[in-house]
């Protein structure tokens, strides 16, 4: 049953990623991206990472996907890619490059990373994540707030219209 759930969610994720790559219209790409992010949130749920699943939906599928759609619909007209492609021949090289990349990643993962006996999965509720976040990772957490503040100031400075 859990394998069936995983397969359905994996197909949804890969299919929406393929849709994002193949559709010419960027607004369709943004909507496919939202589907992909939501299915990854569901995959987090199947790995018992409940806190991350909620955060994924709120931040990624909520804020980030909406920001993309907002940027396309309000600020930038969502133009399709038209006209002659100056690098058409080079672009076809991307497919074998990506295939070689996938093979290399598969080899590395097979050889090294997943050895050893599996441990029982830990529940990833808010309490478990928060306990580690506010004890062992307190300093990175504070640095994150500075990063977000810098991003806010930078965005305001970048998008302000020059008078």
């Amino acid at each position, binding site marked *: 049953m859990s394998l069936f759930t995983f397969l359905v969610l994996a197909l949804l994720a890969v299919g929406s990623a393929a849709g994002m790559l193949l559709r010419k219209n960027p607004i369709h790409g943004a909507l496919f991206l939202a589907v992909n992010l939501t299915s990854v949130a569901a995959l987090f749920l199947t790995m018992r990472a409940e806190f991350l699943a909620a955060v994924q939906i709120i931040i990624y599928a909520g804020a980030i996907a909406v920001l993309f759609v907002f940027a396309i619909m309000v600020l*930038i007209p969502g133009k399709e890619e038209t006209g002659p492609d100056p*690098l058409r021949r080079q672009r076809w090289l991307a497919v074998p490059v990506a295939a070689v990349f996938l093979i290399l990643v598969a080899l590395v993962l097979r050889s090294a990373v997943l050895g050893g006996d599996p441990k029982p999965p830990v529940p990833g509720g808010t309490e478990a994540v928060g306990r580690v976040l506010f004890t062992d990772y307190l300093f990175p957490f504070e640095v994150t707030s500075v990063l977000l503040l810098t991003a806010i100031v930078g965005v305001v400075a970048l998008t302000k219209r020059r008078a």
Partner: protein
Amino acid sequence: MVPESYYVALSAVLFTMGVLGVLIRRNPLVIFMSVELMLNAANLALVAFGQRHGTVEGQVLVFFVLCVAAAEVAVGLAIIVAIFRLRRRLSVDELSTLRG
């Protein structure tokens, strides 16, 4: 329980699709979405590794990746909007001003 290696394999596939998107698309917005796809695939692998080793720290790392991704999207979209205001066109092949 599905073995973690399945999740890692799915993460590798999603990451490769993100790489493919960055390589073949011309619209900077779509390239940006592909970068998000790669970040998300890395998150999936991090959670899978954390569960494999029985610790919650992989999920804490994913939390930090989410924050960095949010900041990156805000700044990146602001840069794309600024470029669009300047040029009135959007194609990464035309943005070669910095080429020496």
